[in-house]
């Protein structure tokens, strides 16, 4: 088996079809029914691009993701924790991911996940009301946002301003259909890019098709 490093604790498996793997932090356990691979005594979980937008970003050829071993990550829109679990794999036991989710039903699964993985810190709160959880989140290295809301860019910048260190970076997943359905996807995304570029430096903007429809990921750095 040939493995090639894609990011910290994340590897490409290069025989046959290309697969993305992340080193399993909770040994022997799967989170959402993904496949497990054991290679050279270490256990890896498959990371599917059609289940997770962050994986799709890697599949689209972006390799400079700044989530590292030991990073502190603020994750907005954690949902039931599919992507969060892989972020938790990347940062390892010395890192921390603060997973904010608004919906209680999704939050239940997130809490169960956190009980298995001590580096996930679940927070049930509205990401647009930063005051409600500002006491529980320290300064972070990285911010990840995947919420389907009209105001998502504004919410992203507000959170980044409060919680992200200078020199930190972040990714925002833009779902153009939930910002404005009547406008074409491209225009919604470029409007979001304009708004973001006022406050931070856009490193790269990637469309996620064919893995996710009408989605874009914008990778930014806060300088």
């Amino acid at each position, binding site marked *: 088996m040939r493995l090639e490093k894609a990011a910290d604790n994340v590897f490409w498996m290069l025989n046959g079809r290309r697969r993305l793997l992340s080193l399993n932090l909770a040994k022997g356990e799967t989170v959402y029914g993904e496949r497990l691979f054991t290679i050279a005594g270490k256990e890896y979980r498959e990371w599917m691009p059609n289940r997770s937008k962050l994986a799709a970003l890697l599949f689209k050829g972006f390799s400079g993701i700044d989530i590292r071993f030991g990073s502190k990550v603020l994750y907005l829109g954690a949902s039931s924790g599919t992507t969060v679990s892989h972020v938790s794999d990347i940062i390892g036991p010395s890192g921390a991911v603060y997973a904010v989710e608004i919906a*209680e039903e999704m939050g239940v699964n997130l809490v169960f996940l*956190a*009980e298995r993985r*001590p580096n996930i810190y679940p*927070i*049930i709160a509205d990401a647009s009301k930063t005051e409600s959880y500002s006491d529980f989140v320290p300064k972070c290295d990285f911010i990840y946002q995947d919420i389907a809301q009209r105001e998502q860019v504004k919410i992203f910048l507000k959170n980044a301003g409060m919680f992200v260190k200078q020199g930190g970076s972040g990714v925002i997943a833009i779902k153009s259909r939930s910002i404005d359905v009547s406008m074409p996807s491209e225009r919604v995304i470029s409007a979001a890019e304009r708004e973001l570029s006022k406050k931070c430096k856009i490193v790269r903007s990637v469309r996620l098709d064919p893995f996710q429809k009408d989605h874009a990921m914008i990778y930014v750095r806060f300088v």
Partner: protein
Amino acid sequence: MDNKEYIVRAKETIKKNLSKDDLIRRMVNLIDESEAAENVLFEATFDMFFLYYPEAAVMLKERDKFVSSLKSGVSRDEVSQKMLISAQSFGYDLDANGMSLLSDSVARLRELDAFRIDIAGRLDNIVKVTYKNLYSICGGMLSARLLCEAKGLKNLAFMPSSKVQILGSTVIFSGRKADRSPKYGLLFKHSLIQDSPQNIRGRVARALASKASMAARVDLFSGTDNSTELDKKLEEEIKKIRGYAIRKSGR
């Protein structure tokens, strides 16, 4: 650092935030899903019955009619008496085993029907007790659907009534492209709209939505029973709209 504290806090928040609205949402879902299951089971059972007695089956294509007609028995003799047709059939003659299978699946279908009606009754009761005002304007099922679509009473109460009017409308996206917004969404199922002539339905929907959102606000903020007053206001307004329609058509 440990995440124990965070887990405890998250659990507390979840427990605090779960409410009757979540129960209502689950019940609406249960009703919809059991209806879907019922339809699937009906089709398969119908096909089986069609094989056995096609003459009767062609007259029983609707689910409810099928279930009620086969209540007392599924054999040709019993069904033919009820339907007043000949018991002679060119269908396949099922043996005893096949007959018991057929009558079993009809019984399951009937059970499912009764189950769905039972949940609908319970849901109606819950809405009636919890949201008296909304119930008096929209009834149990429709109120529950509005609550689901709005994701809770609080959101429903804070919505402008124009949004309540088109809540749950599926044509909303195409409507935007056509530069014309829909007249109604979920409220279409309300008997007041169903009973109104085509040309005033939009107006009725507007009046209805305004009273529904008012009712939701009363339920949220005071919880008192203002239903008689709201009902009267709605009635007056509908009367006015109907009078207007008649005047206009008289001209």
